[in-house]
């Protein structure tokens, strides 16, 4: 029997690795991929709690999170392709037209 805290510790570490990737990488696509890592950490947390609480609520939340992640990936990658088309680069530092 695996304790619940192992799962939560793993999901915390996965979330923080995703946050680190989001903060340090400069590529828009890798930043979106880091968002997926963070969402996966949250998913693992929800599924573990759903198992240890004898409820399927957490699994349903995970289901909705997967739906929203798919929509977010489609929209985010569409924006990345559009930006690349107009700017010829996907580095986020080059998108500073709105900077005052």
């Amino acid at each position, binding site marked *: 029997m695996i304790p619940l805290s192992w799962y939560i510790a793993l999901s915390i570490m996965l979330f923080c690795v995703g946050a680190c990737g989001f903060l340090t990488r400069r590529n828009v696509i890798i930043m979106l991929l880091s968002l997926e890592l963070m969402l996966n950490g949250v998913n693992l947390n929800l599924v573990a709690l759903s198992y240890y609480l004898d409820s399927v609520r957490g*699994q349903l939340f995970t289901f909705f999170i997967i739906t929203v992640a798919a929509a977010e990936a489609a929209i985010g990658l569409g924006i990345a392709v559009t930006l690349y088309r107009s700017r010829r680069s996907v580095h986020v530092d080059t998108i500073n037209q709105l900077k005052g």
Partner: protein
Amino acid sequence: MFTQIFFIYCALMIIASSILAISFRNPIHCVLMVLVLFFHMAGLYLTLNAEFLAAVQIIVYAGAILVLYLFVLFLVSLRDEIRLIPFIANAWIGRAVSAGLAGVLLFAVLPSFTIGEKGRWTVEAVREVTHTKAIGQELYTTYLLPFEIAGLILLVALLGGLVLARRERGESDDEEVSADTTHPGSTPIQEEVS
């Protein structure tokens, strides 16, 4: 005992592949590392008696979302992307922030965590009806409105993807784009090849 060994294997592989995924230079390698991570995540879902979510994880995440990422990575040119300008100060600040977040969550929040009251879907109750049926019963009764909203979100994503990916005919206000309009119908990939 076997379950614990399997959990430790999956946890080590998840941590290692996630760290590799955010540290590789080549974005294709990053996406492939995330693919490894998703398979091990599905294995962890199996240890938590969530078979349906393990299948959804592999089909939707590994099969649809990552393939979308790979398509976009092949659409934008790789030659520009590999050359990254290192921002040492910013990168270390980001690493420090995420390490501090991990430390706070692991050593302050996690020990003070208490589990709440139990629900009605015990392992035996789920095993009596099957797992997918239990999820479906909850999804289509208690969570009917979020289910409809999820469908609406998918519709918005579909329309947004269509609008964003459509190539405007008259977009020539930029000098870089106006180079494209001399060859109508040519995409950036074909230019990269030639």
